[in-house]
Every structure is written in C-alpha cells, then in structure tokens.
C-alpha cells in the first residue's frame, strides 16, 4: 500500500503543473479514448482467454478419462453417470463429507467409488498443478532466472529429507507427513535465505545458496535410505520423492485447498510487483519498491504454493519449471496474464500427466512425477532448440 494517496502532498507540485510548453499538445489528447493503456482489461487478451478455455476442456476431458479407470470395473457410461449423479451433486451431506471430512452418506457403489476415490484424485491434481505452476512462475521472476523452479531455493530437498526422516526415524509421526514435508521445505527455504543474505540478497546469491542447500539435504536424504529397514518404507519414501497422486483422496484435497486459494490470490495480487521486479533491482528500487521485502514476501507466497503441492503429491519434478515457460510462450511475459495463465494451464497439464501416469503402463500405475520428468525434460529441450530466447523473462 502507498504511504499516502497518489495525489497526496506531492500532488500540489506535480510534474504537470511545472511543465509549460509541451504539456498543451498532449495532456488532453486521448482522454476518454477507449484504446488507451489499461482501458481494456488485460485479462481479456485473446490468447489468454483461448488458453483458459483450452485448459478447462483438458481438465474436464482428462478428469472424465481418469474417473473411468480403476481397479473396480465399471463401464465408461456408468462412471460418467456417477460423476453427474444428481443425488450426490445436490446432496449437502455428501459435500460435508467431502469438504469437511464427515461421514459419507449412502450412495450407490459406483457413485461412492467415483466420488470418493477417483474424483478427488483429479481435484488434487488440479490443486497441485495450479500451485506448482504459480510457484515456478513467481520464482522465475524473483530470481530473474528462467531455469528457476519451485524447488530452486531448497524446498524439494528440505521436504524430501523431512519425509525420509519421518518415515525412517520418527515413524510415529507418519500421520503428520504432509505437514512435516511442508515444514521441512519451508525450513530449507529459510536456511537458503539466511545464507544468501549479506546486506540484502541478489538473484544469483539466492540461486547459489539454493543449489548448495539442495546438495546437502540430498546427501542427507540418501544417507537416510541406508537406515530404512523394510521395502515398504523405501517404496513409500520413493513415492514421496518422485511425486505421486496415487491414492490421494478428499483428505488431501482438504489439506491443499486453503493454502492453494491463498497462494493463488496473493500471487495474482503480486503480479504487478513481479512485473516491476523484472526491470532489475535498481530500477525497481528507484520506482519506490522495497525490493528486499517484496522479494521475500513473494518468495514466501511461492513457498506456500510449493508446500501445498508437496504436502499432497510429493515432489513432482520439472512441472514448475516447464509450465510457466509454456504459458509465457502463449501469453507473453506480463505477469498479470502469466499468473492467470498458470492457474489454468497448471491444472490442465497436471491432470493430463496424471492420466498418463495411470494409463501408460496399464494396469500398473507409475508416479506422476515420472511422467512429468520424462515428458517435461525433453519438451524443455525442444523449446530450447526451437528458439534462441527460451523463456526470456
């Protein structure tokens, strides 16, 4: 917020008053013309609208495919009928059960399976995709580095280490695993910030500190594997570290929904700050931004988003790196459009990747993190080869 209104005490001697000759020929022109800057809402940009519509379609189609598959055999018609079953959709009791965790009311087996097991997986994919895409977009601006991802500041390795520590050493705390993973990621981020801080930070110091903290925590992570005594623990840990949506339910949705909502709202509100940060710290500073404070707060928003995704889906690699690039290619680098684009494209790509994770090696399921890595990596290389100015931000 401003310290005072824009026409506060300085308004009296605004530049305009002090300007004589060149004022006359420009001041009144264009007032009221509709095509002046800012008149047409940025979000009505055709490419952004197209992206949003396409993404929504992908989410719906992907969701319908996802709910049609699973170990309980039912036909596609049965599954889709269950999705649109009015007895569930218009049953407040059912929504209480889904959103607040109360007892699930009577419903047909098909509806129960679709609504209680298959659909929440799609919804959690939507949240995780949204979070990772937005988080990656923020980190790419904060570090002014197109190779930044949600995990660049140590979050993934911190979270991964806490997960292993919990599973291997403090197994009684396993019910709190999502929370602990998020806490571990946040701690690693704070350590990175602390290391990078010397009379303020800079993008390059942050990234370097992040690389080093990542390396240390990854070594610790590997060390923990040697203390795991049974295969189940190792597999569970691997699923966390690779990122998987297998078996997520409404509980995971409830965990991630509120943080996602806040992270996305804050990110949308911070879009203009992100745009100004992209002009360089000096310029942002001379425009009156408190760069360090804004940078820390925006990082915190990105960490909140990344933590929400990690808590429910583990560490899904490459996603937060690639999606902002894809969106940027479509809508340009204006963060007001980019964040909105990520809010739509993230879910679409995550739902699509999760369909891939379920169907690629049917009947076996692979972690969605494997799909994002295997598809995202080569796609990123393709982008890199196709254009010189990859991810120019």
């Amino acid at each position: 917020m401003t310290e005072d209104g824009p026409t506060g005490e300085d308004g009296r001697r605004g530049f305009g008053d002090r300007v004589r000759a060149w004022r006359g020929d420009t001041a009144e022109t264009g007032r009221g013309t509709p095509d002046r800057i800012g008149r047409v809402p940025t979000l009505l940009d055709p490419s952004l609208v197209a992206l949003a519509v396409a993404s929504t379609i992908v989410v719906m189609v992907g969701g319908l495919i996802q709910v049609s598959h699973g170990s309980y055999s039912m036909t596609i018609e049965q599954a889709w009928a269950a999705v649109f079953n009015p007895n569930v959709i218009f049953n407040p009791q059912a929504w209480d059960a889904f959103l607040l965790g109360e007892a699930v009311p009577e419903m047909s087996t098909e509806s129960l399976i679709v609504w209680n097991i298959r659909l929440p997986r799609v919804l959690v994919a939507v949240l995780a995709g949204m979070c990772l895409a937005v988080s990656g977009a923020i980190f790419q601006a904060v570090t002014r580095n197109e190779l930044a991802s949600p995990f660049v500041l140590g979050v993934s390795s911190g979270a991964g280490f806490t997960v292993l520590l919990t599973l291997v050493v403090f197994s009684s705390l396993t019910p709190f695993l999502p929370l602990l993973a998020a806490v571990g990621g946040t701690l690693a981020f704070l350590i990175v910030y602390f290391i990078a801080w010397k009379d303020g930070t800079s993008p390059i110091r942050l990234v370097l500190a992040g690389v080093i903290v990542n390396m240390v925590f990854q070594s610790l992570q590997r060390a923990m594997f040697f203390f795991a005594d049974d295969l189940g623990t190792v597999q569970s840990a691997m699923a966390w570290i690779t990122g998987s949506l297998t078996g997520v339910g409404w509980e995971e949705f409830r965990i991630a929904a509120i943080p996602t909502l806040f992270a996305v709202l804050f990110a949308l509100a911070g879009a203009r700050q992100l745009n100004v940060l992209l002009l360089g710290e000096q310029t942002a500073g001379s425009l009156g931004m408190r760069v360090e404070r804004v940078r820390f707060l925006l990082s915190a928003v990105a960490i909140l988003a990344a933590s929400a995704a990690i808590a429910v889906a583990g560490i899904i690699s490459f996603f937060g790196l690639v999606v902002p690039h894809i969106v940027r290619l479509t809508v340009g680098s204006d963060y007001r459009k980019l964040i909105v684009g990520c809010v739509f494209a993230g879910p679409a790509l995550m739902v699509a990747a999760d369909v891939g994770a379920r169907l690629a090696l049917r009947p076996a399921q692979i972690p969605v993190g494997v799909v994002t890595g295997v598809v995202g990596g080569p796609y990123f290389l393709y982008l890199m080869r196709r254009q010189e100015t990859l991810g120019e931000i």
Partner: protein
Amino acid sequence: MTGENGCTTDGGTGSLLSEKDDADGADGTPTEDELNEAPAAAASEFAGDDLVIGYPSTDEPVVDGESISVPPGEVTALVGPNGSGKSTLLKGLADQLSLDRGTVRVDGADVHDLGAKRLARKLGLLSQDSTAPNSISVEKLVAHGRYPHRGAFESLTDADRDAIDRAIAMADVDHLRDRDIGSLSGGQQQLAWIAMALAQETDVLLLDEPTTFLDLRHQLQVLEIVERLRDESETTVVLVLHDIEQAAQYADHVVALEDGEIYARGPPESVVTEALLADVFGIDAAVTRTDHGPQVTPLRPLADGDETGGPDGQRD
C-alpha cells in the same frame, strides 16, 4: 587558490554551494505544512551533505566525505574518469546505496525519512543495469514509471495515462509506443527507459550515463530531452556523462570527480580546462572556447605522474 590551473573553487561558484557552511542554511527538516505552502512552480532543492558512500564488499568508501548541492531546476553533470566515483555518488544521492555517513535532502527533507514510494515521487533514477522482458511494449514499460503514484491494487487513472502520454511525447517515442522492447535498437530502448523515468514525474531526475553505448544521433536525442526538461519544466536534473564535451555543452554546471573526491565544480567554462583534463582525466588536450561552450580536442594520454596540477592540497 588554484588560479593558475583554472579550477574553480567554492568561492568562485556562488550558485553551487558546497561544504558545510552553505548546507547549514537548510537547517532542520521543514514540516509538511511548510512544504505545502511552497510556491507551486519552485524547482526542488537537492543536496547531499558530508557523504561517505561505499559498497558492502569493500572496506574503503568510494566517496569519502563530499558535499554537493545541485542548483534547482538546472542541469548538473558529473564527470570524471572510470572509477572516479560518479555513479557511486549518484546512487548514494538516490538512496539506492546506503550512506555510511551524511544526509541527502530533497526540499530540506532527508530522503531516508521519506517512504520509498514518496521518495520515488520526488526523486527518480535511471540506472545502467535496467533489464526488461523483450516482449513488453514501450507503452507498458513507460506505465511502470507510474508505480510510485499507484496503490498496490489501483489501476491506471486518467492522470496516470496523461502522465504516460506526456512522457512518451517528451521522449519522442510515440512512433514506438506499441513496439516490443526486444525489437528496438539500443538507442531506442534507452529513449523508452528515459520515458519511463519521465512518467515518474519527479522533481529531481538522476540519470546514470544515459548516453553511454548509444550512437551519436541517439546521444543527441537523449541530451535534447535533458534540455527540454530544463527549459520546459522545473525538473532538477543530475546526470553522469562520460563525454566531457557533451557535459560542457549541455550542462549548466559541471562537477568533476577524481578518486571519489570532487575536484572542481562550476559552470562549464570554468571547469572544463586544459589543466583539469590533465589532472583529472590524465590527458593532454586543447580546449577552445566556442559558442557551444568549451570544445575539447584530446591530443595524447599523459604518462602517470605527468600531471601538470599542483599538489593535492590545492584541490577542491
């Protein structure tokens, strides 16, 4: 004092006050009311007093205890060789580099006590390290100049749009308005950046080497904007210039730095002399008086220690 080498000292430049005796005149920070009652058209006072400025990574300050006061509504050029501390001084004046000691005042108010956005409405700095996304249009870049005038969630007002139009007209980039920054030449980009700084509509505008790396035509375009700012507005302009001849031609006042110390200050005719070029820039040069100010013809570099100037004690 320095009559033989022609460097003007404090006594010779009444309008350029320096050192403490003059600065003390602006004793205490005027209250908000006093500021409000100031005549609407008055140009801003801008002065730095007893400045010690350094970088966190180095022990020795770059600028050690200098004072500078800039004539309101006029153009002041900081000149000096590489590493003489011009840009450091400018960043310190703009509150972009924290001062180890000293104060910078705009209209009597300590810039450090003004909020960041309030300061940015009074004082603008166009720095050298500006980077912009290639796909941003000139108009949108210029619109960022309104940042300090807008609340966090306010959209552009008509006043903002008028300011953007004025800045674009003044920087003469109207034909580039909808072009992306990435598609412009370096000179055109610099004009767009200047338009952004103009849209900030500050009382004091600091420009860090605005003409460096530009071709001659764009250099002249930039300097014409500076001239227009002086002639058509009350903006106080301070700019770092590499080209001492340009400084002599376009600035009302020249401040020459050497090794972080102000060596000479005053109107171009008295500062730009053969002796100063030898002492500060280490070159042998011929200075001719012309209608456009002193004209400098560089002849050869002087060997180290070949300077014609007197001992340090004679320096300003």
